[in-house]
């Protein structure tokens, strides 16, 4: 199989302006992936599917991943002019201080496709797409029209992560019931308070048990 770089070059040649970037995988598995832009993703996917040399005709796995807003704290050295009063006289001096600056990297939802080729028996090619943010820009193009195998899995990602796949023919909840509101696999999902007595409660469960203690249930002081 071609390397990820070669595949990227092939994509760029076939789909002008595809905007594909490589996401490296630092781990020992070294399965690097391609990050598709959502505008050109369908065209790229079609190319990957149809290209006789690549022939990724089998979409093995569709995964949703939730990346929360990340607060990144950096230590920056700042040089400042400081005014001080020394012995009653104001002096100005330059001083280098270390400051921690925080900025929030916006979170996003991500969907990862693992593509293989049954005809050529190679793979996997890891392809990902990212939403704009975690709240309102959660639409991504669906690959179900290209790989039918993504049908149930994209429904599952929609169900559990809330990524809306445009172009999916039958986008409904699949594992949770239709009336369910939230998306339970998101990292900031809050479980409904369905406390059940458990004699060996720990940590989070214990906390919940203590909250319920006033209601006459719960254990361990």
């Amino acid at each position, binding site marked *: 199989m071609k390397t990820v770089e070669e595949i990227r070059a092939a994509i760029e040649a076939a789909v002008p302006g595809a905007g594909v970037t490589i996401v490296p995988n630092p781990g020992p598995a070294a399965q690097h992936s391609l990050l598709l832009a959502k505008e050109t993703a369908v065209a790229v996917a079609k190319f990957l599917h149809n290209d006789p040399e690549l022939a990724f005709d089998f979409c093995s796995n569709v995964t949703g991943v939730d990346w929360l807003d990340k607060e990144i704290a950096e230590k920056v050295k700042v040089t400042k002019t400081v005014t001080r009063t020394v012995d009653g006289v104001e002096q100005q001096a330059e001083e280098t201080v270390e400051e921690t600056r925080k900025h929030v990297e916006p979170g996003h939802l991500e969907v990862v496709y693992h593509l293989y080729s049954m005809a050529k028996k190679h793979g996997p090619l890891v392809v990902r797409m990212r939403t704009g943010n975690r709240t309102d820009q959660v639409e991504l193009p669906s690959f179900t029209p290209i790989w039918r195998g993504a049908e149930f899995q994209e429904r599952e990602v929609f169900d559990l992560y809330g990524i809306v796949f445009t172009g999916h023919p039958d986008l409904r909840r699949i594992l949770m019931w239709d009336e369910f509101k939230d998306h339970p696999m998101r990292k900031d999902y809050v479980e409904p308070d369905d406390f059940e007595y*458990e*004699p*060996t409660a*720990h940590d989070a*469960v214990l906390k919940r048990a203590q909250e319920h203690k006033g209601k006459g249930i719960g254990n*361990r002081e």
Partner: protein
Amino acid sequence: MLGEGIIKGMLETAKNFAGSYVSKERLTTVQYPEEREALPEASRNFPILIYDGPEWEAGLRCVACQICEKECPPKCILIEKSADKKPDAVGKPQFYPTRFDIDIAVCMSCQICVEVCPFEAIKMDKEFELATDDRFGGLLHDRHQLAKSNEYYHQIHPVEAAEVDARLAEERAAAAAKSKAAAEAAAAKAAAAKAGAEKPAPPAGGGA
């Protein structure tokens, strides 16, 4: 010919019908409460706590390190560590669990607690007839119910228990030698004698 396969199949069932009267192979049912098959040694059900010596409370190997509590996937273990220390089987002062509960309604018999225990204190029992009509109390085993003697452990897992005993003896001997050496060294220095290590550090992991 039409019906050939059907006749072949009928002969097969007839063979099994007749065979069930002569061969054990074709009548595999074990009539459970009266007949029981011996469980293999590796068989596991729910955890028990091993104690050395005759007194269960004094001999518990558990030092309330709470590793198993943390590692337990369904979080069915509840340990409360003692404030004071008590001498263990070897005579070294150790913490001990004032409370050690396992909710066997939640326990899924995965044996991870046994694997992570550095003190060979928790092992798996073979007892499976634990049904009770009390959902909470009956299925919540406290440390007294969980405590089983080393002899019992030898009964249910003879090979494994022998290995464990050998390993423990070795460690204890090493620890004793070490503390003795330390004590001698300390005595030689004429300084205040203190025991060496707080506790022995055996390698992690179950028997291989």
